[in-house]
Every structure is written in C-alpha cells, then in structure tokens.
C-alpha cells in the first residue's frame, strides 16, 4: 500500500439521517473511512445498507429530504459540506468524477452524447489544445466506443446499455479527476457486457492512477478491482479489509453469510441439498419445433405474422418429471417467449407442446381446468406480480377456490399451510403487497403457484430483481419443495452460477435457438459452443488476483 502525506478522502464518524413517512431515521450511522491516493476502495452492502448515501455524501449531495447527523467528510483536507455552492460546483466533475448506476436514465435524452461530454470540458475550463470535438472523440475512443466520431453525434437512446455506460465513464474521467465514485456501474448490464466494463475500469485505473470508490452489492466483481473492501449493513460499517483477506478470513458473520450466498461457478454452494438419484426419466413436458413471433397479428387479427419476425426459431426440448430444466440466455434470446408459450399466455407461430403426453392447446383459456391447474408460472418483477389492492390471503384463496373444492374453513387452513411452506409468518395473510419486501413478495408468488398443487412450475427469471442473500434462500426453498412434492421446474435465468448447481438439464439460448443442450454437469465442464465459453468466462470469480495498484503519482 503506497503511503502519501495525507489520505485523499477522510470520512470521520459520518452520520446521515433520512426523513421518511414516520419522521427522521438514521440511514448512515458513525462511518469512518479513508481512501488513499491512487487506491480503489470497494463499498459493499445490500440494498438499503446506506452505501449509496455515503457515496453521494462524498459529492456533497443530499438526496431528497436528508441531513448530516454528524461527523465530517474531508476531501484533500477540505470539509465538503462546508464548501460554498460555487466551490462545490467547481469541485464536482473537476476533482471528483461520478459514474451512475443506470446509464440509460442518467444521460439527458434531449442532448447529443458528444455534447454532454464536451460540456464537462467547457464548464470546467479544461485546456483543449487540439479543439473540443476532437478531444471528445479521443475520450470516447479511450473508453472503447466503436467509431467514436459517429457516436458523438448520436442521442443516448441510440446506444446500447454498455456503450451508454462507457460514455458515462468518459464524462467522469474527462477532467482527469483525483477521485471517481462508481455507484453500481455494472448492475443493469448483461453478464458479458459487465465483464468488458470491469476490464475497462481496471485498465483506466492502471493508466491514470485515479483513486476510486466502487459501490456495489456484488462482492465478486468488487474483488476484481478494489484493493480494499468495506462491508456495510443497515447504515453501519462492519469491517474493512484488503479483498484477499476479506474473502479468506471474514471477521463478521454477516460478511461470512454474504460471501457464502454468492453463487460460484467453480464450487457448489455450502448448504446444497444432495442431488436426487437419477432414475428412469419419464418426460413430463415435451416441446418440439416451437416458434414464437413478436410481430402483432395483422390488422383485424387475420393475417398471420411473417416467419422472419421469430424470436424463438423452432426450439425442441423436454423436461423429465421431478427434475429442473434450466433455460439460459441473455436479454433478447427468446427465453421468456418460450416460458409464456408453455404457460399459454402467447400463441406460438408453429410447433407443438405436449404435457404428460397430451397435446396442450395454445392459449390458457382453451385448456382444461386440470391442465391449467397442473402448470403454474411465477414472474420476475416482485413489484408487479401481486395485485396491490388485495391481501395475501385473497391472493392465495383465488387459485384455491378455482382449482380446489374446499369450504372457507379448509381454505383458511390451506392458506396458513402454504405460508408456512414458503417460510412466511402466517400473520402475513392480512398484509398487502406494498407492506412486504421483494423477497417476501416472491415467496407469496411461489405460494400462489403451490396453491394449485401443480406438477410443473415455470420460473421466469424470478431471482434477478432480488439481493444475493435473498436469492440463495429462494433456491433452497425451491429445492426442498421439489423434494417434498416431486415438483418439476422450467427455470429461466441469465445467471449461470445460480443454475450450475440447481438444474439437472440445461439449454443455452442465443438469438432464439439452442447453442447448447444437455446434462448440466457435462455441458458446463466441456462446453461445445464458443458462446457458452464466453458466458462461463464472464462469471466473476471470487479471490481472483486484484489489479495491482498503480505506482504513486
């Protein structure tokens, strides 16, 4: 660790209060941290841990109704919150760069990309000998944007997610700041794009020697860039250690549990249940030649959509009873279309689906009550999967009344039993969705699926909106339910590490077709298609050697 006269950033006993519906609550409680010159500090924690509040405090920005409860924030020895507005404006962008979480929402839609970078230079009076526009092109090129001159003239919505983030990084580094704060820079991106962005950040750190504060909930990607990592929970700083020692000897049991719940591609999760014995496979679900098109059926619904517009191109696979089949693919690969076709929400353009040997009508409303009862679906976004106006009890009661012949007393008992099955306190029955956390809502969705006592449950990316620790507990729950009730899962995800130890069969989708299909173990240990290899390689490995810090400036 290089030593220099004085740390670049010093947080002394910082506390920040946040004014919610019920008065002031403490979001950050007595946090002290330092960032040395040229050092990259990771700040890890789950949503609501206060990590983002700390990052913004460093920029002198109080989001919404919040106030400094105590302590100091020093940048190069100067108290940030003591600065006058003009000093603060001069500091931001000039000395401290900022890379936002969701690039799409953070670039001004009505202004060209080049213009947004150029204004950083113009308003911070950065000397630009070779002229503004060429300097901008240089910056965009430096962050790896293909033909930067053309890109400069485009509007944000005309770039991909990855490119937008690169523009944000270019803006942050335009004035050669001393410190760059990154707020979950890779969260909204695809796995492969995530890897490229992390490599870019590492390379820029090496070249410019800029110090970084990298805020993220993803410990794995943090460990790849930062020399030291600080872990926060509910506003308090638990421990700070260099990344290697943190992973090997975590001090705090919360950190230990956090690390344990990170899905790893190279090692099965600790509390993984014994895999089921492989006995004779009787296929429950058989899909062959399935094609689904995104084009709306023509005007008046008569003309069939053109074949060219298929998102799913004649896919065939089958799922054995009591097993888990995983469908893997990035956004736009057609995995959700397959799920919706099986669930009967969208009519496929071609191909047949058989369940228990019986052909399935295309749309749910044409299917028999028995079929609709045996196949259930759970959705990705917990916010929109439950009707906000209903109580948990009525949400669960609806399928019970539709599929079962129970009187109200029996139904009440069933609701209690279902809540227990998904590890929820029966008292939750009277709550409404907005009184539950994301994880709790997903559990209610699972309970709703179980209410029909199904044979097949389609899980359409049900984990991606949840915190890492919450994901792990949901996987455990699904495994236990599979063993207790012999359930079959069609599990759709984009995260190989999660699926690696959970699914028996796996299918890797790319642009609507399988580029890999077969038993998980053999497929992932010896992948045949280059795309799968690329996916495997993109999964961040914990404890990999961090990028060596640059020599002192």
């Amino acid at each position, binding site marked *: 660790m290089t030593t220099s006269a004085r740390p670049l950033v010093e947080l002394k006993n910082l506390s920040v209060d946040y004014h919610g519906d019920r008065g002031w609550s403490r979001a950050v409680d007595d946090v002290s941290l330092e960032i040395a010159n040229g050092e990259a500090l990771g700040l890890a924690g789950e949503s609501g841990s206060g990590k983002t509040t700390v990052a913004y405090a460093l920029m002198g920005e109080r989001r919404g109704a919040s106030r400094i409860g105590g302590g100091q924030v020093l940048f190069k020895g100067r108290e940030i919150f003591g600065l006058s507005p003009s000093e603060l404006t001069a500091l931001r*962008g000039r000395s401290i760069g900022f890379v936002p979480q969701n690039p799409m929402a953070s670039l001004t839609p*009505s202004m060209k990309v080049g213009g947004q970078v150029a*204004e950083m230079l113009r*308003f*911070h009076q950065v000397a630009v000998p070779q002229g503004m526009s060429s300097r901008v092109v240089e910056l965009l090129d430096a962050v790896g944007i293909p033909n930067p001159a053309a890109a400069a003239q485009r509007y944000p919505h005309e770039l991909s997610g990855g490119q937008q983030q690169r523009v944000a990084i270019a803006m942050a580094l335009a004035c050669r700041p001393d410190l760059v704060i990154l707020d979950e820079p890779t969260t909204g991106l695809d796995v492969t794009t995530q890897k490229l962005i992390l490599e870019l950040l590492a390379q820029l750190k090496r070249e410019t020697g800029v110090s970084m504060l990298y805020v993220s909930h993803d410990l794995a990607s943090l460990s790849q860039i930062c020399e030291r990592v600080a872990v926060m929970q509910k506003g308090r700083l638990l421990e700070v250690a260099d990344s290697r020692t943190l992973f090997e000897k975590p001090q705090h049991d919360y950190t230990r549990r956090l690390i344990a719940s990170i899905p790893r591609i190279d090692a099965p999760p600790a509390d993984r249940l014994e895999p089921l014995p492989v006995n004779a496979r009787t296929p429950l679900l058989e899909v062959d030649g399935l094609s689904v098109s995104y084009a709306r059926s023509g005007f008046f619904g008569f003309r069939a959509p053109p074949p060219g517009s298929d998102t799913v191109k004649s896919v065939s696979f089958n799922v054995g009873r009591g097993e888990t089949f995983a469908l893997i693919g990035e956004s736009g690969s057609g995995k959700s279309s397959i799920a919706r076709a099986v669930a009967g929400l969208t009519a496929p353009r071609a191909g047949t689906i058989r369940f228990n040997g019986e052909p399935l009508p295309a749309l749910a409303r044409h299917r028999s009550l028995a079929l609709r009862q045996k196949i259930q679906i759970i959705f990705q976004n917990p916010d929109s999967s439950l009707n906000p106006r209903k109580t948990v009890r009525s949400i669960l009661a609806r399928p019970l009344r539709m599929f079962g012949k129970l009187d109200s007393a029996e139904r009440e008992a069933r609701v209690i039993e279902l809540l227990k099955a998904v590890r929820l306190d029966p008292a939750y029955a009277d709550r409404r969705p907005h009184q539950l956390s994301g994880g709790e809502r997903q559990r209610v969705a699972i309970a709703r699926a179980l209410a029909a006592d199904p044979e097949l449950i389609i899980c359409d990316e049900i984990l991606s909106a949840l915190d890492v620790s919450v994901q792990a507990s949901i996987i455990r729950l699904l495994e236990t339910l599979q063993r207790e009730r012999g359930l079959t899962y069609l599990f759709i995800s984009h995260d190989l590490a999660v699926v690696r130890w959970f699914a028996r069969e796996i299918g890797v989708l790319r642009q609507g077709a399988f580029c890999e299909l077969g038993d998980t173990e053999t497929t992932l240990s010896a992948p045949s298609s280059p795309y799968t290899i690329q996916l495997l390689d993109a999964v961040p490995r914990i404890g990999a050697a961090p990028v060596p810090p640059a020599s002192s400036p």
Partner: protein
Amino acid sequence: MSKLVLTRLGMALLSLLAVSAIIFWCVELLPGDAAERILGRNATPESLALLREKLNLNLSAGERYFDWLRSLLSGDFGVSLVADRPVLDYISGRIANTALLSGFALLLYIPISIALGIITAIYRGKFADHAISVIVLIFMCLPEFVIGILLISIFAIKLAWLPPLALIGQANSFGELLRLIALPTITIVAAMSAYAVRMMRESLIEVLESSYVLMARLKGLPTWRVLLFHALPNALGPAINITALNVAWMIGGVVVVESVFEFPGIGRLMVDSISHKDVPVILAISMVMTGAYIATNLIADVLVILLNPKLR
C-alpha cells in the same frame, strides 16, 4: 416523421367529414327553418313559400347535405341563407378577427404560463410557489364570463383605463386596436394559463427529480445550464400538449368572451347562425373550428417529437 404527418392528415380529412355529418344532423333537429327565422314577425304564408323556394329549403336533408359536400369539394362553401352572400367572404372577416384575438392571447399566454410554471417549480414549497398557485387556482375556477364582467366593471367603467367593448370596427390605428382588444385578451389568457401553469409546474418538478438532472448537477454544471439545457427541453412536452388543447378551446370556446365584449368573432357568428339556422355558415364555421383544432394538435405533436429525440 413524415409518415406521421401523412396519417394524421388522412385522419384529419376523415374527422372533418364525420364532424360535418354530425353537425348537419344536429342542425336538422332544430325546429323551424331559416326562412321562418329570417322573416320572423312579418312572415306571411306566401312570403315564406317564396323564400323557401329561393333558398331551396324544400329539398330533403340528404340532398341538401350532398349538395353542400359536392360544392365544398370544388372549394365553394355555398351561400349564407341569411346574409345572401358567399359564405367564405362573409365569415373570412370574422375568422381574421378571431385569429387576431387568439394570436394576441397566444403571444401573451405562452411566455406567461412557462415563466410562472418554472418559477413555481424551482421555488416549490416556498412563498412564491404558494402565492402564484393560489392566484392560478382562483383564475382556474372562475368562468371566463365572470372574469370578463369583473374586468369591465373595474378597468373600463370605474377606472376607465380601457374601453369596455372590443368594437374593433372603430380602431383607426394599431395602438387603438390594441387598447380595444386588451380586456378580452387578458380574460382569455387568465382563463387558459391557469391550467397550463399547473401542468408546466408538475412536469418540471418531475424532470428536476429525474436521474439525468441529478447527473447533470453532479457533473458540476452551473444551475442555469442544468435548468435550460437539461431540465426544460424534457419538461416542455406535456406543456405543449396542454397548450394545443387550450388553443383548440380558445378557437371554439371563446363564444362567451366574444359575447361579453361584443367582439365580432366566429364564436358569436356561430351562435347567431344557430339561432337563424343558417346551415351553410354553421357548417363552414364548424369546419374551420375543427380544422384549427386538428392543426394545433398536429403542430403540438410535431413539436413534442422534435423536442424529444427518442420519439423521432
């Protein structure tokens, strides 16, 4: 973009046709006919028959409608039954007046509503916001004719600063014309901008709390830069739509303001034509009003698209 304009024009023609049919059918329901209305008290059976013949009111409703439609396609709006003059020539003076009044009202309305919208948004929660919001709320709730009557009794009669009636026939110079239409213009602007200010405020507040405005501030840009180049362009969308609706109301709905100030516009002419059941004039004015509504909406949509590259 041009595809949008083409489809919208197609739609416009369809709407105009449909509107003409609806209005014609409504007018047919009116009791009595133009001949009775013109002769009024001095109508005698023979003079009624004579006039009906002259105005060919004896044809069936269907025939008269298609006659009118055929002549419309050849650009002839027909002859006013009452004024016995070609409709276009008869109403073009009135259209010019309403366009004049609407034009002035618009010139005042746009800057005022945007400026007040910005002020209330920036100083939201502070005194300026409350003060302006209360005034805006009061104007929003007062019907135009009450505002008009109050303005006349205060500024025209008691203080005698401005003439009470918009008798623009008397204006000899442009300055005098301005004085004459001052009160009706203020009435329209007051009635219209109330709603626009609230809409502008709401959309600007929403934009000021967006992530890209936060990002612009964190980039260390001066406040005026953030407001004018990052916030305002994206907040104008809803305000433009409201302005389009207001303009449409203004053209059709100023009947009340025109009758309070004796302003010779198409609103009052429409009311008179309805009472005289002067079908060609009613239809012509309805076409103008609906055409203006569709035009303002098209312009507004085009502006919104220009402002927001995402929609381009």
